[in-house]
């Protein structure tokens, strides 16, 4: 048993930091965090291995790989969690997630391995008694866990089809906790870790995250600013 805790990063959150040139802030956050920043092998593939093969994104991939090398990010093996155990649970989660909603043409496949692997790792850590949260910027995985009914309504409206929900499967997703890059940036702001110290820096950073893919509305950004 360990007294440590963990933040599990999805590729979408790492990418928001990376594309905004804010990896330094992520490193600073890690320095004050009494725990580990974890990425699964599947997330490593999406955030490092795959972009490493593309000229346009190789530099970003190298920078993120550097964070694995300096142990800002660690693999789950650092907590004694085997890749094979995560893989098995990942497949279970992906299979369940992709059959929660059924339309007229069959199951609606919503998520992929990287996203499912974050859920799998979170469950494994929880079973080990390690407090953890998932940092995910893309909206579908978060909504599947937090607001599945609203997600169903949204899909029905967007896809113009009636959707049936497997309520038993929904229950598998209800115990996860999520934050986004925007909440992490808020912590960095409150703890004085930001390189830029102007009064409007927080606003600028929250919008920068939004425009690089973090699913956050303008109202939510305003609410965060009101907490300053």
């Amino acid at each position: 048993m360990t007294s440590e805790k963990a933040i599990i990063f999805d590729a979408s959150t790492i990418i928001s930091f990376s594309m905004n040139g804010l990896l330094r802030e992520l490193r600073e956050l890690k320095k004050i965090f009494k725990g580990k920043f974890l990425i699964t092998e599947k997330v490593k593939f999406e955030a490092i291995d795959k972009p490493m093969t593309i000229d346009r994104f190789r530099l970003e991939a190298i920078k993120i790989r550097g964070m694995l090398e300096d142990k800002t990010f660690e693999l789950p093996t650092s907590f004694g969690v085997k890749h094979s155990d995560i893989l098995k649970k990942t497949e279970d989660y992906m299979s369940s997630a992709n059959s929660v909603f059924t339309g007229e043409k069959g199951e609606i496949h919503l998520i992929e391995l990287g996203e499912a692997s974050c859920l799998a790792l979170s469950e494994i850590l929880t079973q080990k008694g390690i407090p953890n949260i998932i940092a995910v910027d893309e909206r579908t995985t978060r909504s599947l866990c937090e607001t599945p009914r609203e997600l169903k309504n949204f899909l029905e409206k967007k896809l113009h089809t009636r959707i049936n929900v497997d309520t038993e499967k929904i229950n598998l997703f209800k115990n996860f906790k999520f934050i986004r890059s925007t909440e992490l940036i808020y912590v960095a702001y409150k703890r004085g870790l930001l390189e830029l110290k102007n009064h409007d820096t927080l606003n600028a950073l929250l919008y920068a995250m939004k425009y690089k893919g973090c699913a956050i509305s303008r109202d939510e950004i305003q609410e965060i600013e009101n907490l300053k």
Partner: protein
Amino acid sequence: MQEKENILKILEGTKASIQKGDAATIKNLSNQTTNTAALTQDPDNIAVAVIIYSISKLIERKDYKKLPGWNEFYKTIFKGIDNTINSIKKNDEQKTKENLDNLRNSLTKVSGSLKKYIQDIFRKASINKASKLYEHGLSMEKTANLLGITLFELASYAGQKESVSEIPFGKGISTKARIKIAMEMFG
């Protein structure tokens, strides 16, 4: 291929619009494939969406037509659409797949300076369609994998679209509560 009748209608509409040089109608036709692509995630439907959107972008830019190789490329595209229409009408699944592959390849196998423009347009069309699927509720990674693009490309493109973040699927927990979770985690 799923929704064959719909795809057939779209390809026939595209063919007629190419002849008229009507890029707006072609773009509109490509958007009609999004629902089916999101629902079925059928690679052929997705391929048609990307190809047709690419064609619309090519048709609307008059300057490409002056580049060497355009006439040959135009004929190849036109013939490719014709072949695909015929194979769908004959219910020949295998041939339809082959024709779609040929059509897609003809967009990337062009010589000279036209090649780099077309490849760029094809890439942007893939990102555009990925963004549409993400808007329709599929996850970011799912969408990127379906379209063969990176999360980096999708994240920055989708981030510019208000329709993604301003129409959330319900808020879940409050903003304040989510901040509290983050702050507590950092002790």
